[in-house]
């Protein structure tokens, strides 16, 4: 019984890590920049397609496609940010929502045009497949890999925001853009870079997620709810909160699907409602 419990717990954590990886970018853009970017899933999908295209057409190894997906999506997002997003920073949330939902639909149609509507094949390298036995516990190697990457990314983002000069600039630019400009901070540049990092993380999450989530042009709409659950339960702009929320959601989802499969799919939403009623600003969110 204990072994079963631990297996399910581990699977839940790994699933939570995946949710974290794919949502953390949204937490960065929405929480730190205050921009409601519902097109986040489109950037994740773009990362996924970069990874599969490189693997299928050019035979690039899976591990190499991950940084490439991050970099390409980040670069592309700078272009999109300078051309489109920056015009909407001062607008209300409704304009931002309408704009980014429109962008999502365009990306869905665009990807369908190039790749067709069907599922993309994803084959992991042999060393990431199968299971290993750790202390008598059977765990999937890929899931172990997900947990490791998730922790690394979480550490990098936390340290980056809280310990570096760039992190201080972001916080300054968000809290008081006029004052930040007066101090000689290039607010536009800081925002562009922050946005690029957020989108790049989405691209990385997308590339990592295709093995479990699959990849079709419907991706950004299909998983939008999951991203939003993680970000809202975690608390806007809180990296630790997003990590905690993703793990809670992942573990509860996995546990209920294992022990109560009849109602398992519903529980995740009930948990979200309960958590938000308890803490409307999210688990680790600050009151604004």
């Amino acid at each position, binding site marked *: 019984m204990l072994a079963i419990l631990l297996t399910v717990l581990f699977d839940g954590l790994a699933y939570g890590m995946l949710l974290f990886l794919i949502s953390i970018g949204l937490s960065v853009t929405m929480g730190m920049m205050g921009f409601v970017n519902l097109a986040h899933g489109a950037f994740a999908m773009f990362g996924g397609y970069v990874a599969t295209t490189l693997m299928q057409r050019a035979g690039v190894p899976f591990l190499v496609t991950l940084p490439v997906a991050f970099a390409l999506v980040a670069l592309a997002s700078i272009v999109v940010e300078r051309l489109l997003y920056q015009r909407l920073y001062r607008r209300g949330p409704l304009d931002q929502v309408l704009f980014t939902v429109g962008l999502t639909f365009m990306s869905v149609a665009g990807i369908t045009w190039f790749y067709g509507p069907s*599922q993309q094949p994803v084959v992991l390298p042999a060393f990431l497949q199968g299971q290993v036995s750790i202390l008598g516990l059977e765990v999937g190697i890929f899931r172990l890999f997900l947990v490791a990457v998730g922790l690394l990314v979480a550490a990098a983002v936390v340290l980056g925001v809280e310990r570096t000069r760039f992190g201080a600039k972001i916080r300054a630019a968000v809290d008081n853009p006029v004052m930040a400009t007066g101090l000689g901070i290039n607010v536009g540049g800081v925002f562009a870079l922050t946005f690029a990092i957020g989108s790049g993380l989405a691209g990385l999450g997308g590339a990592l997620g295709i093995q479990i989530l699959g990849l079709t042009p419907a991706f950004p709409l299909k*998983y939008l709810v999951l991203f939003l659950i993680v970000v809202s339960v975690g608390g806007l702009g809180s990296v630790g909160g997003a990590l905690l929320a993703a793990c809670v959601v992942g573990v509860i989802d996995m546990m209920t699907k294992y022990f109560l499969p009849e109602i398992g799919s519903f529980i995740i939403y009930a948990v979200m409602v309960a958590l938000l009623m308890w803490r409307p600003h999210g688990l680790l969110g600050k009151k604004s």
Partner: protein
Amino acid sequence: MMKKAGLLAALALAGASLANVAVAADDTLRIGVIATFSGPYADYGRQFDAGIQLYLKDHDGKIAGKKVEIVKKDTAGPGPDAAKRFAQELIVRDKVNFLTGLDFSPNAYAVAPIVTQAKIPTVVMNASSSAITTSSPYIARVSFTVQQDSAPMAQWMLKNGIKETYVVVADYASGTDAHNAFEKAFAAGGGKVVGSVRTPMNNPDFSAYVQRIKDEKPQSVFFFFPSGVMPPAFLKAWKERGLDEAGIKLFATGEATDDSYLQATGDVALGLITSHHYSYAHPSELNKKFVKNFYAAFGKEMRPSYFAITAYDGMAAIAGALEKTKGDVSGDKVMEALKGLKLESPRGPIEIDAATRDIVQTVYIRKVEKVDGELVNVEFDKFERVKDPAKEAQ
């Protein structure tokens, strides 16, 4: 005054176009196709279209000596309201003689009252909910019912010494149909369903369900998921958890190894045994010709799936019926002609049941193998003249 003149002009134009339609209707056969041509399920419409075009190409673009005009309407997925509206438009404005296409069951149900009222013969090319043909006397089906494909799998498993199984289906109407039909056939032959689960439609990760099955150690598992993203996700979790090594045998319906998605599903599908009415590797001469012509016309990018074959057969059924009525397109006569119609399809012999207007066909048992580097469903056993079990029971 201006307003009135405009109105008159509009009326005159409308009258002129109506007159055109009336003239054209005599020497052309108009067929309305309601299907999904955009969105996540656009592949369905593409396959339908390919099957229809291929049939017309093989027959010089003519049916019963008449030029054929295809009018396509896109529901962009399951959309009963859109389907109903399109059916009205096609019948009233485009004056179609036949309605066909119909990939999703809710769309087919929505069209039923319209075609009943207008007496327009309707040929269902995919929608597989059993009661569609009972919902209107003007509907016949050339595809399959979920029950028709699920029950033979139970019979085959029993025949091969499998006495207990665990059932996994997607939680929607067809999943329930598959579950019930399978369990009924399995229990009737002395088998026992030891457990079951209905998974949500929007479920990305199957590992919890698969782990649960592994811990319960049933002799075998039967699953039904709609074509597309769910079967590969389930099969990946299955392989990752090592359920083959645990000695649990896996069976499914052919949706799990749909030819449209099989290549993308990859090696996790190898060895899977499924029951279905069509594999593009069906070894008949007629099918070899069908596949060859299909590739010649549309390139090798797309495999002909069971959507393409039913679209092809749908056109053949319309042609067969019109041959019997000598070109008379009136609804009642065409439906009479469709009843009991027998066709030699590339998938094997098919027949439209005279009593139910539903299809009677061979259901094949197939295994996924690698042939010339490609994953294909290789047929190795079959059940002949299978009727819809849901209707047989009544």
